[in-house]
C-alpha cells in the first residue's frame, strides 16, 4: 500500500516546472503563445498540483490520495499540460490532442486519461460528484483525503451546482474544496459576488488573484474547520466571443 507516499509526497517525479507549460500546451495547439482564455486555469492548476494535492502518478489509484475533479471540462489544454508536466502521462501524447486515436479529447475522459478523476464536458456534473466523493471518503474513514473540484464562473449557471453548494455546507464537508475560475464569462454575471453564494450556504470562501501563485497557495491552504472551502480565482475577463462554442 502506498498510503505513506500519498500522504507525504506532493507534485510528481519530473523536473518540469511552470515554465514548461507553455511549450507543452503548444504541442496541442500548435501556437507559441496562448491567450488568456486558454490559460485561465493554468496558474491555479499548477499551484494546486505542484504544492497542494497529495497525488502522484505512483499514487493515482491509492484510495487515500487527494482527488482533483476538473468539472469545467472545456479548454482542457492547461490541465493536460499540468498532468504531463507532473508525469501522469508522457508528453508525446499531447500532440494527438483531439485525434481519433488519442486519449486526450477536447473534454477529458477519466477512462482514457491517466490521472483524470472524472470525465467531464457537460457542465455542472463535477461539484455534485465531488460532494459524493467527499461523502464516500468520509464514510470510509479516509479523513486525510481531500477533494478539489474546479468549476468556471459561467458553469455556476447550472443549477446542479447550487444543489451541491447548498448541501455541502450544512453537511460540514471539510474535505471538499471548490476552485472557481472567474473570468467574468457568466452571461448574467454574479451580482454580489461568487464567494457570497458559498458563504451563504455555510462554506468558507476567499477571493484571490488567479495569477498570483503565493496568493493562490495561501488561499488553498487556509484552515476551514468543519466547513467546505471555496477559492474564487479571478483572472482576466474572457474576450466577448459571442455564444459558447460547442467544440
Amino acid at each position, binding site marked *: 500500500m502506498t498510503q505513506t507516499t500519498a500522504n507525504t509526497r506532493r507534485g510528481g517525479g519530473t523536473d518540469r516546472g511552470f515554465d514548461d507549460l507553455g511549450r507543452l500546451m503548444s504541442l496541442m495547439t500548435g501556437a507559441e503563445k496562448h491567450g488568456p482564455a486558454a490559460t485561465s486555469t493554468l496558474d491555479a492548476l499548477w499551484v494546486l498540483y505542484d504544492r497542494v494535492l497529495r497525488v502522484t502518478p505512483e499514487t493515482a489509484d491509492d484510495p487515500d490520495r487527494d482527488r482533483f475533479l476538473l468539472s469545467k471540462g472545456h479548454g482542457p489544454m492547461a490541465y493536460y499540460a499540468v498532468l504531463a508536466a507532473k508525469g501522469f502521462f508522457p508528453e508525446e501524447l499531447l500532440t494527438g490532442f483531439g485525434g481519433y486515436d488519442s486519449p486526450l479529447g477536447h473534454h477529458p475522459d477519466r477512462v482514457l486519461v491517466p490521472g483524470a478523476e472524472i470525465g467531464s464536458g457537460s457542465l455542472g456534473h463535477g461539484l455534485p*460528484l465531488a460532494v*459524493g466523493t467527499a*461523502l464516500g471518503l468520509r464514510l470510509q474513514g479516509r479523513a486525510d483525503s481531500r477533494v478539489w473540484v474546479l468549476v468556471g464562473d459561467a458553469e455556476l449557471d447550472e443549477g446542479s451546482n447550487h444543489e451541491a453548494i447548498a448541501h455541502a455546507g450544512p453537511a460540514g464537508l471539510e474535505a471538499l474544496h471548490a476552485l472557481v475560475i472567474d473570468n467574468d464569462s457568466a452571461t448574467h454575471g454574479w451580482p454580489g459576488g461568487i464567494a457570497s453564494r458559498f458563504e451563504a450556504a455555510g462554506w468558507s470562501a476567499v477571493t484571490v488573484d488567479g495569477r498570483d501563485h503565493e496568493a493562490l497557495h495561501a488561499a488553498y491552504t487556509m484552515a476551514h474547520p468543519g466547513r467546505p472551502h471555496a477559492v474564487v480565482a479571478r483572472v482576466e475577463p474572457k474576450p466577448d466571443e459571442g455564444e459558447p462554442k460547442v467544440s
Partner: protein
Amino acid sequence: MDTMRDRFISTTSQLLDEDPRLAVVLADISSDGFRPAQQAHPDRVINVGIREQLLIGVGGGLALTGVRPVVHTFASFLVERPFEQVKLDFGHQGTGAVLVSAGASYDWPAGGFTHMAPGDVALMDTLDGWTIHVPGHPDEAEALLREAVKGDDRVYVRLSLQQNDRALPVTGEEFLTLREGRSGVVIAVGPMLGAVEEAVEGLDVTLLYATTVRPFDSAALRRAAGHASADVVIVEPYLAGTSTAAANDALRDVPHRILGLGVGRAELRRYGQMTEHLTAHRLDPASLRQDITGFLGGR
C-alpha cells in the same frame, strides 16, 4: 402483505448492517422509512433533500470511491428528471450503482401525471450496460436487490404498488417458463403476471414470466418460439412496445409477429384508482384476453 417499497426499505436497512460497502442516497422520499437505518449508520444513509441532480451526482461520487450506492426516489424523479446525470455520472465514468424507484406508471393515480413514469424503462433502455429488474412481488424484489448490491455494475430496480399474489423463484437473469402451448408465446413482465394468467386461462399458449427485462432473455424467447413461425405478445407494466425491438432482435432468424401491450402514450388526464388506469390502458384481464386472442387468431 407488505409492498415492494416496504420490503426495499427493510431489506436495504438490514443490508446496511451487513455490508460496510453499502450506502443509501435519498432525496426526502422514503426518508421516514430509513430513519432507524440512518440513526444506526449516519454516514451511510445520505438524504440530500429535494435535489435530484445532486441525488444522482452524489451516487456517482460515492461509486468513484468504491462505495456501492443504492439511490432511491420516485421513478419520475430518479430517471426522468436527472436523466443526463444518470447517463454521465455512472456509465460515462465507468462506474455503477443500484437505482431503485417507486411510483411506477400509476401507483398514485390521484397524484396525476407529474408522478407517473410509464417511460422510465424505455428511457433507461437508451443507455448501455444497465440491468433492469421489474419484480412482481416483494419477495422477488428482495431477492433481486440482495443480488444487485453485491456487484459494481449498473442496475435499475423498478418497484410498484401493483403486485402478484404469489412470488416466483426469480434469478435476476432468465425468464421463467410457466407453461407451454402451441398457438403463441405470451411474456408477462413483473406485476402484469396476475392479470395475464387470468387472461390466457384455457388458451393454448406458452407463458413466460420476465422480471429482468434487460438484458432481454433472447434465448428463452427463441426456445419458446421454436423453429417454425412465432406469434409473440409482450405485456409490460410501462410504455407499450418497450421490449418489442428486443424481442424482434431475438427472433431475427424466425418469421414472427409481435404485439406489444402496455401503458398507452397518450396522457389520460384522469385521477382515481390504479384499477381504473389499468382498464383505461386495456391492461385488465378481460381487455388483455380480447387483445391476445384477437392477435393470435388473426393470422
